[in-house]
């Protein structure tokens, strides 16, 4: 005779998850792959003293065993932060290059082809008479040709076909101070001298590049702000799905007398975990991309006869990326909790 009856309606989440009936009748821990009799220690160890540590463990268990959407969200965070990080890396290196050029403040004066040595001396003396000029260096046509050969590397053989050296004398010097307007004024003045063909100076390039970088910075940061807002909303949606999936548990805990924080903490930590893992993934991806870019840049700049080494994100920048990821996770979780969880 049957001594126990079954309820008329009984939910079967095992069936919902597609577990075979045989598995549903096995002890829970055995189904998790632990052989033999489950030990009470498994439970005892999970009841740690610290509430927040316990909530973090609960959130981690949910995250690990959760749906694909948790991992998808983490990947989205990682990709978004990678875009952000690469952008910061690019701008930081551009700023550094601009500062270097500005700091050098090198001006090159190209003389006309027909300029004689005495005219060269005259120009040189005129330049030396200016107090703001230092490190004046005369580059002969032969020296200029050698530099060009070095720059061209294996292709320098092309220059051997030239019957005559087409290059003229030039003078290089640095301008004291770091005022781009003064350098520009000086360049215009020297450019008006009769024996001078052209004047080029790095600060002009630096000024133009700086303006371009400023534009990219403003546009890029605006787009990134939109991107990060979208990410926060995606996290919020993922947490919402968790809240919906766990509404029975939340209701039961509520009627048992759980505090707001007891119910909310695992969701908040879930956002924290997603943000943290996303940020760590992003740092890994940025580092990989940086290595590739640094190698290519080194080879490219070597071809053009100078050396430029890319620098990786600084410790404060990396910390910011980490905080940004965690912040996004927490904001997403809090948006979701305020909108979808009524205690």
């Amino acid at each position, binding site marked *: 005779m*049957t*001594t*126990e*009856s*079954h*309820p*008329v*309606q*009984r*939910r*079967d*989440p*095992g069936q919902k998850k597609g577990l075979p009936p045989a598995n*549903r*009748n*096995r*002890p*829970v*821990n*055995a*189904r998790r792959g632990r052989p033999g009799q*489950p030990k*009470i220690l498994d*439970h*005892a160890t999970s*009841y*740690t*003293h610290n*509430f927040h540590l*316990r909530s973090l463990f609960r959130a981690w268990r949910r995250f690990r065993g959760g749906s694909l959407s948790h991992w998808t969200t983490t990947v989205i965070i990682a990709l978004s932060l990678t875009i952000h990080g690469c952008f910061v890396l690019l701008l930081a290196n551009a700023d550094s290059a601009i500062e270097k050029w500005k700091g050098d403040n090198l001006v090159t004066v190209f003389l006309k082809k027909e300029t004689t040595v005495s005219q060269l001396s005259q120009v040189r003396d005129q330049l030396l008479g200016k107090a703001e000029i230092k490190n004046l260096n005369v580059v002969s046509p032969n020296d200029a040709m050698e530099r060009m050969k070095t720059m061209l590397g294996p292709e320098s053989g092309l220059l051997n076909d030239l019957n005559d050296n087409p290059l003229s004398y030039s003078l290089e010097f640095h301008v004291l101070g770091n005022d781009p307007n003064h350098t520009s004024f000086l360049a215009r003045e020297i450019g008006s001298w009769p024996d001078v063909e052209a004047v080029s100076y790095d600060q002009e390039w630096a000024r133009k590049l700086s303006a371009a970088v400023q534009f990219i910075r403003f546009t890029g940061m605006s787009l990134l702000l939109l991107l990060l807002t979208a990410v926060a909303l995606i996290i919020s949606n993922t947490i919402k799905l968790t809240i919906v999936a766990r509404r*029975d*548990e939340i*209701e*039961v*805990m*509520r*009627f*048992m*007398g*759980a*505090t*707001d924080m*007891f119910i909310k903490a695992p969701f908040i930590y879930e956002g924290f975990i997603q943000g943290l893992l996303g940020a760590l993934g992003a740092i890994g991806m940025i580092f990989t991309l940086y290595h590739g870019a640094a190698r290519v840049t080194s080879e490219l700049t070597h071809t053009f006869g100078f050396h430029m080494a890319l620098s990786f994100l600084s410790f404060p920048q990396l910390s910011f990326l980490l905080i940004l990821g965690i912040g996004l996770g927490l904001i997403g979780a809090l948006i979701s909790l305020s909108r979808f969880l009524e*205690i």
Partner: protein
Amino acid sequence: MVRFHNVSMRYPTGYEALKGVSFRLNPGSFYFLTGPSGAGKTSVLKLIYRAELASEGAVLVQGRNVEQLTSAQLPTLRRGIGVIFQDYKLLYDRSVFDNVALAMEVAGHDPERIPGQVSRTLESVGLKERMYHNPIALSGGEQQRVAIARATVNRPPLVIADEPTGNLDREMGRRIMALFHNLYQQGTTILLVTHDLDLALELGHPQISMVDGCLTQVPDSAQP
């Protein structure tokens, strides 16, 4: 322990579930709340653990008007009440042990006490051997006993149960009732909703009867 003063309750749909209900439950007493379906029995329970609020009148639990409790005070009230739901409300993504342990976690008990206390409580309802099983693998009677263990593991002074034998056969119903009787003998106040009058009469505890949201029978000991 519990006092109802002229309590009326209307749902947002306009349906009036309770009309001027007044009674009291003394500490350490055992009452059956009986009546046909739709009489308002479940509404009485919901008002006690403040799942719903009264439209009129006052509900006092342990001397406190539940309506006036702040959201910070509400968890304390609920921790003092063991609620057993008709549909058990067990969590099927964890073991029997974890279902019961959750009640202790929620109440903020010393984590070192949890495994021992849960084991003892499950032993008292005859489920120690099945504590690592998923509740879905248990029979209806066993699931009901898990729900009782969960509601009583914190030893609340008041236990309220909504049709705890409604889905069980007579024999299992008797076993479940015996568990409630044990709790009563240990000093717990019990309010048990049932429409099974025979089972209520067998135990001999007083009945509060309801029909259509009104009390039709209140024993002298439960008069307000």
